[in-house]
């Protein structure tokens, strides 16, 4: 299977001169579809920067990024990067980042609206996604009326709206209790295996580790370990 994201000797440096800080150094890797990749490492190791580079949110200072085999131009504009994100990538955030004034289904529908899905189809598709994530009965609720786990599942439904082939999650279980966190991790794992989505999860959470098909370990901006656990939880 061909990689959906390929990074070759990617480096990210923040600031200049004496204040320059290398967040990523010579990172090379390929993300495969249909598997859940975990990005682990201590704080400040460059996990989020790596996620941002993979998510077309951050242009690397050095190296090459390929998306579905196409090399991204180093001077790609912010609007072009946004268009790539919209077309191919779904995001799940630590604090859910739901729109508080919109109901659960409307939060999902916004992603479909961005992708210019006809308005008449937005509600139906949103409800189907929520149902798939076990939230059919919460569709008309506002985020404030949902539990943490429910919010994160709405966020996953939103990330999946429009069928992205890549799903990037930043600490998706950090704000959840043990059982709920495991449930969210299991959902992400199922998405990778069931829908063939390339799922990349940044996490500190040991509860997530058993769900990873592949574990990447970063330290001081360098990829120091890339292993496939002998047995995943799936």
């Amino acid at each position: 299977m061909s990689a959906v994201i390929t990074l070759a000797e990617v480096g990210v440096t923040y600031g200049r001169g004496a204040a320059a800080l290398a967040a990523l150094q010579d990172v090379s890797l390929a993300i495969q579809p249909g598997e859940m990749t975990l990005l682990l490492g201590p704080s400040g190791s460059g996990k989020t920067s790596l996620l941002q580079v993979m998510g077309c949110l951050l242009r690397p200072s050095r190296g090459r990024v390929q998306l579905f085999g196409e090399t991204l131009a180093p001077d790609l504009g912010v609007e072009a990067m946004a268009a790539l994100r919209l077309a191919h990538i779904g995001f799940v955030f630590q604090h859910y980042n739901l729109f508080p004034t919109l109901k659960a289904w409307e939060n999902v529908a916004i992603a479909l609206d961005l992708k210019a899905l006809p308005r008449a189809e937005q509600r139906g598709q949103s409800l189907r996604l929520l149902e798939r994530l076990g939230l059919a009965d919460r569709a008309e609720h506002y985020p404030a009326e949902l539990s943490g786990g429910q919010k994160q599942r709405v966020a996953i439904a939103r990330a999946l709206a429009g069928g992205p082939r890549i799903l990037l999650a930043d600490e998706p279980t950090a704000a959840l209790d043990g059982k709920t966190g495991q449930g969210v991790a299991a959902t992400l794992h199922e998405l990778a295996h069931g829908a063939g989505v390339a799922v990349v999860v940044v996490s500190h959470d040991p509860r997530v580790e058993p769900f990873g098909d592949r574990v990447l370990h970063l330290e001081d901006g360098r990829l120091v370990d890339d292993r496939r656990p002998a047995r995943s939880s799936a």
Partner: protein
Amino acid sequence: MSRLDADMSGTSLLAWRNLSHDRARFVVTLVGVLFAVLLMGVELGLLLGFARTTSGLVDHTDADLWITPAGTTNVDIAGRLDERRRFEALAVPGVAQVDQLMMQFAFWRKPDGGTESVSIVGFNLATGQGRPWNLVQGAIEDLQQDDAVIVDRLYAAKLGVTALGQTVEINNRRARVVGFTAGIRTFTQSPYVFTTHRNAQRFTFFRPDQTTYLLVRLRPNSDAAAVRDALQARLGRVDVRFAADFARAAQRYWLITTGAGSALLLAALLGLVVGIVIVGQTLYATTVDRLPEYATLRAMGAPNRYLYRVILKQAAISAVFGFAGGMLLVGLVVLASTGSTVAVAMPPGLIAVLALLTLCMCALGALVSIRRVTRIDPTSVFQ
């Protein structure tokens, strides 16, 4: 789910919810827009009302051309013309009819004492050129009597008259009120007193062969510009103008030359600026509160124009509701002005202009917010 929500696009839904979920701020925005619309509406309505008042006398004759003493800037203040000019004008090809119209300030002594300045308007009773319009009491034919005059109800109290038949003095000559009009205002605040040309000459000590204006009707199918030029050449030291040109000249004189219009425009501009500032401030505060949401949209891949649409729709919603409320108040002011000597005009064209100004005001108010979201860093969602 309401039908309204289901029919809304994502940007409309976000815009509406952003506003409606912070009702206190939304109310502040609406009040700001409402008062801006009220201020702009009343000032521009006054401006238009004054403009119509300054040229009312010209607009309500059906003369094609006005012959005025040279250098005349407005219909209320003018010198004198000799009657022979009328015969010279009648001799010009294309001229069908020439009527005299007098306009002269005079002193009106009220029945119970006290004096007011008035503008005597003397017209040709036979042709009716320059006659009062909106006569609501009495008859034009009653002006055939030597001392008969017609005044407007708006100024009845000021002139000290309450009923037909009352006698007053104009420049120490006896005059009798034989009719009332409704809504004929004067910009100079010296009320128009309509009478026959002959009576006007008597009231104002004009010689029988003197008048103020000559009103020209052209023969059908004549070349108006050519006749005007011919009249100008034939009569020499007078001004010959189309009625519309003279009306605009009068408006320009009173509203621009005297600065009265500038003051009204300035007040309207102030309303616009106040509206922009209020809308700008409240929209910006809403935008800043929701920056994480805009950053999330950006991270999801929303183009900048999607974010702009949300903000502009918030501005448009504020404009629509604020305009509706503001126009309701403007309507009340217009209604109240019908019985006063100061008219606030509000024709459909001005309503359209106000709607456009309100939209522009709110869009300008949204610019600061748009600038702010343009600078959003989508990676901030990871912090």
